[in-house]
């Protein structure tokens, strides 16, 4: 599926509500600042993180995480 393209994590910080779902689901890719706002630890995560990253994007209550494909 993602043989040639890489997954890219794009965050809309204005939409982040600090719920921390992404950190619970994909702790290797996301963290939070002290005030809860998301920190992206790895904007182009390795393929083994694609599952958790997709889940994090799907369950984000602020719909703040978007996934792009880069060549």
């Amino acid at each position: 599926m993602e043989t040639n393209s890489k997954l890219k994590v794009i965050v809309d910080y204005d939409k982040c509500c600090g719920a921390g779902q992404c950190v619970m689901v994909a702790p290797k890719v996301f963290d939070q600042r002290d005030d809860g706002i998301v920190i992206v630890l790895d904007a182009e995560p390795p393929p083994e993180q694609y599952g958790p990253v997709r889940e994090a994007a799907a369950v984000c209550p602020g719909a703040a995480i978007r996934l792009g494909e880069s060549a």
Partner: protein
Amino acid sequence: MSTDSSEQVLDYPLRAPTAVDPPEEWAKLRQGCPVAHIRLPSGDKAMLITRYDDVRQVLSDPRFTRNLAEEGAARITTNEGGSVFENKDAAELSGGEQHEKWRRFIMRWFTVKRISAMQQSIETMAHQLIDKMIAKGPPADLVSDLAFPLPVWVIAEILGIAVDDRDKLAHWSNSMLTMTQFTQEEVDKAQMEFVHYLMGHIAKKRAEPGDDLLSDLIRAADQGEQINEKILLMTAQGILVAGHETTSNMIGKMMGMLLSDRRRWEQLVAEPSLVRSAVEEVLRFDANAGFGLPRFISEEIELSGTKVPSRSTIICSMAAANRDEKAFERADEMVLNRSPNPHLTFGAGAHSCVGQALARTELQTVLSVLLRRLPSLDLAVAPSELPRREGLLVGGIEKVLVRW
């Protein structure tokens, strides 16, 4: 197309057949009447939305708040002083910049990092409560022995409240979340006692700050932040009201749901790694979630092709939305390994539940500890006999009698 053609006004909350099954109206409303006219316990009219996309859209829209102290907004309860949604002081904090600032501040105590640091202590509390329950022997009531005390213990720790005062906290919390169960006099009395206690507690923290949320707010006020006594009180009160009964009820309902079809419990005993997704699924599947979230619609919007006029009150039923077939495959089945599970139980958007990481951690911890300590756990009554908790804004099960 307008729903006005169907003149029917439903009495809200809707009645569910049992403590764990959804009201029959949900599926029909989602299908044919996505913006339904309802009558609230106060007699005031409002509209109910039940589709996933509609509920998500309204909850995520930053223009609309839950502030029902606005003129023209529907009142929810028959009590004159009103419910938690009509509190004028809380309303001051519910919109705009000040809300944002306050939320960011409170958020510091509810990040995943903070909550993970509390996990061990939550686990110890769960063990303590389960030890006591086991010592008494079966049958036991999971609600009074475990689900009710645990979240209030956790909140007490966050607010820096002494162990000896936890039970008082539980009582006040129970009384303040009333719909019609208590008289206005009883609600007022609990509220007064609680405020009086908190003022004393805040004074103590001023004199001797500790490592807790209120001490943090006091320190910030000393450094020039605009945090007065009223905000301190409202914060403490808000955290108790938002975090106690809701989580207690959810623990009870989680166990009711998992044990009412014991294959679910057995699946988790065999595969404890499913705890995280199982907790999300019980949150999604909870049909007895209570009232839903009100929103005061300050500007006209369109939902599922229906125009909703400005100055209407909408009740968002997250629980009905969570059963929407268009959003979830096999929506009416509990699928313990469902992923992703973007349920709306904690709301969505800027106002989504601040304490959701804590709630999740409490639920996951309680479930893991019970699976380990009491794998033979079973209901001691028929699932249809689980008594519903009546009269509160948050739905629950009164008693979950178990044996092991």
